[in-house]
């Protein structure tokens, strides 16, 4: 019964993504068609803004507010939020989803309190500045292929900039203005501390963030994100491939394979920019409450929803840059070549869009699970990680990748290097650390004497380090 419920939910989620993306393509084609009548091209992008950004991203992040709490409760062996109920469904907690309604109602009806000496303009501006850039980030992330709907090409990206990744960097850094302004304008020492922490954290991670993607930029020699010549779609090319029964199988040139170090660096740095645990020093709830200390009501709600939108957008950017965007691992050519799919481009777009959003869901899960796994970094640890680990690693990665791409432009050498890196991390993960080894050694050594069952007995060996035996 439980399995059935989970399967139903999974199908529901897939179906929602499928429907939304199909609707986006359909509306895009219709608007494009409408625009041609008025001699305007590119009206199809409006469909992306309306359906992908305003509906999918917003609903996704709204649901994430409850998913964060619910998944966290499962991780911590709790039941999680289940008190809010819908009328006529009093016996079913519905996975805690009605809590969204109560949260929204609470935030909208609470007083928007402003401290007496706070800067009026900046205080009101800060939540918008935190929310706006984060939301605008998704504009360059492609969530589906460019397809011909109603004879007009529809791009599944709000704006296909030639400098997509640079736009990503620029706008991502703008979000910190909201945070530091909130800290400054609140006229509160703790809020100010949070704002200062946020800006210093941003500075220490910005460099690593930029460096981590340079490897991908030189591998595909572009900073474009969307379109056939963008990083997202160029990952569809195969490093090694073969054809079985007309279906192309092979290893695609996904960023995770050719730039695993770049992925780790970008993930860590971008994670630090979202200001979510374990990088939540600006918030630091248990020590300084954070930059939004003085905010209440929907102004606080905007900070909060901005955080979850950032999670979704970061997921989208990661998928577009490192996980092949909307493409399947293999079989894309076969799927796109099917006559039925050629006749029904909306269906094809819906399938690829669903693939994209499922990948995003996976990355989002990874982010939330890390948030529930790791304790908060101490402030000096954050700085040390940014300047002493991420930055030098980024530089090494950049030089090694550059050399390998020069040596072998087919990216195969780069992929082999990537596999070596993945292998090293895999080996390190599967082998016990020094501490665990020593403890096991000491336990085995101790148990060998048959003393373990005698609590009162104490022998001299116990006091010595294990390796002296």
């Amino acid at each position, binding site marked *: 019964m*439980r*399995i059935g419920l*989970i399967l139903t939910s999974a199908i529901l989620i897939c179906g929602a993504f499928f429907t939304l993306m199909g609707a986006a393509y359909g509306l895009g084609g219709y608007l494009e068609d409408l625009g041609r009548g008025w001699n305007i091209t590119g009206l199809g992008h409006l469909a992306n803004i309306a359906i992908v950004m305003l509906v999918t991203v917003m609903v996704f992040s709204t649901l994430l507010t409850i998913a964060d709490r619910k*998944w966290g409760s*499962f*991780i*911590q*062996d*709790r*039941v999680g939020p*289940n008190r809010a109920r819908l009328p006529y469904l009093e016996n079913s907690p519905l996975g805690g989803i009605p809590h969204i309604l109560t949260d929204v109602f609470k935030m909208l009806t609470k007083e928007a309190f402003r401290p007496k000496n706070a800067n009026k303009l900046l205080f009101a501006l800060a939540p918008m500045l935190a929310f706006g850039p984060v939301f605008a980030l998704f504009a360059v992330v492609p969530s589906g292929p460019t397809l011909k709907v109603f004879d007009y090409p529809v791009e599944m990206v709000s704006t296909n900039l030639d400098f997509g990744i640079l736009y990503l960097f620029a706008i991502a850094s703008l979000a910190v203005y909201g945070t530091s302004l909130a800290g400054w304008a609140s006229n509160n020492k703790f809020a100010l501390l949070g704002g200062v922490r946020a800006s210093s954290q941003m500075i220490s991670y910005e460099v690593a963030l930029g460096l981590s993607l340079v490897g991908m930029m030189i591998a595909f020699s572009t900073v474009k994100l969307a379109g056939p010549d963008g990083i997202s779609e160029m990952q569809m090319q195969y490093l090694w491939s073969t054809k079985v029964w007309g279906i192309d199988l092979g290893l695609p040139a996904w960023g995770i394979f050719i730039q695993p170090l770049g992925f*780790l660096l970008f993930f860590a740095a971008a994670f630090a920019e979202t200001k979510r645990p374990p990088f939540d020093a600006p918030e630091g709830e248990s020590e300084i409450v954070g930059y939004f200390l003085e905010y209440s009501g929907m102004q606080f709600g905007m900070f909060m929803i901005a955080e979850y939108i950032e999670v979704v957008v970061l997921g989208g950017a990661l998928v577009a840059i490192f996980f092949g965007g909307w493409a399947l691992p293999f079989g894309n050519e076969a799927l796109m070549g099917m006559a039925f799919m050629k006749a029904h481009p909306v269906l094809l777009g819906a399938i690829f869009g669903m693939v994209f959003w499922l990948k995003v869901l996976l990355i989002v899960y*990874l982010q939330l*699970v*890390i948030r*529930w*796994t*790791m304790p908060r970094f101490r402030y000096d640890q954050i700085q040390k*990680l940014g300047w002493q*680990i991420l930055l030098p690693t980024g530089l090494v990665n950049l030089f090694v990748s550059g050399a390998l791409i020069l040596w072998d432009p087919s990216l195969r050498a780069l992929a082999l290097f990537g596999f070596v890196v993945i292998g090293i*991390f895999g080996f*390190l*993960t599967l*082998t016990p*650390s*020094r*501490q665990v080894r*020593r*403890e096991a050694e*000491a*336990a085995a050594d*101790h*148990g060998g004497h048959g*003393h*373990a*069952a*005698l*609590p*009162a007995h*104490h022998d001299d060996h*116990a*006091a010595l*380090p294990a390796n002296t035996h």
Partner: protein
Amino acid sequence: MSSLMHHEPEKKRELVEADVRERTYVPEILKGIALTTRHFLRNLFGERDTNPDVVERKGITSITTVNYPEEKVDYPPGYRGLHRLVPREDGKPRCVACYMCATICPAQCIYIEAGEYGGEDDQAESRVIEKYPKQFVIDELRCVVCGLCVDACPKDAIRMDTYTHTPSGYDRQGFVYDIPRLLQGPAVSHPSDPWYKRGSSAPPDHVHKEAHTRIAAGGGLAKRPPLVEVMKFPKP
């Protein structure tokens, strides 16, 4: 294992320098993610099991929460719950107003006013039970739930076997329990009960004037019960 099982001096656990797994964070984070994901999947796919017998819990889940207002845990046997005045077979309280419970109560939360059955009637048979509580009041807010009153009672007339706790209320007066609220639950009879020691089981010839119990007085007394029959109050 051994470090947890037996009492070792604290210096046994020396700090080992962090190795490359910890300093690069990634392998340790991956291990952490594996752990949390294991919990997540177990609790996602498993049915919640609230069995208080831990060893008898089945399934893969580790969630054991009882959703309180909808689900309640049965109190264990012997739980000292809300007091009750034990009725006799005819519905009157077994209490003989001896003040033992009121005397031993460390919180002094029991108030008793004794009355006499048929005071003007000098017939010996009807005076087997001399006293009864005109008023028997327990202030449940003062009660410390020590159970001494139950132990002190010579007539097994007050018990705490209701297996409920004192329900919450909005005013203090609501926590003052008098006879109508206290007299509840199944009747209890003992072969040694004095009202069975009389020669005949016919009702005493006097008529109770006061309606001092919730359950109407009158009606014949029960027959002498079998040798030992202690009624067990059913769990809610």
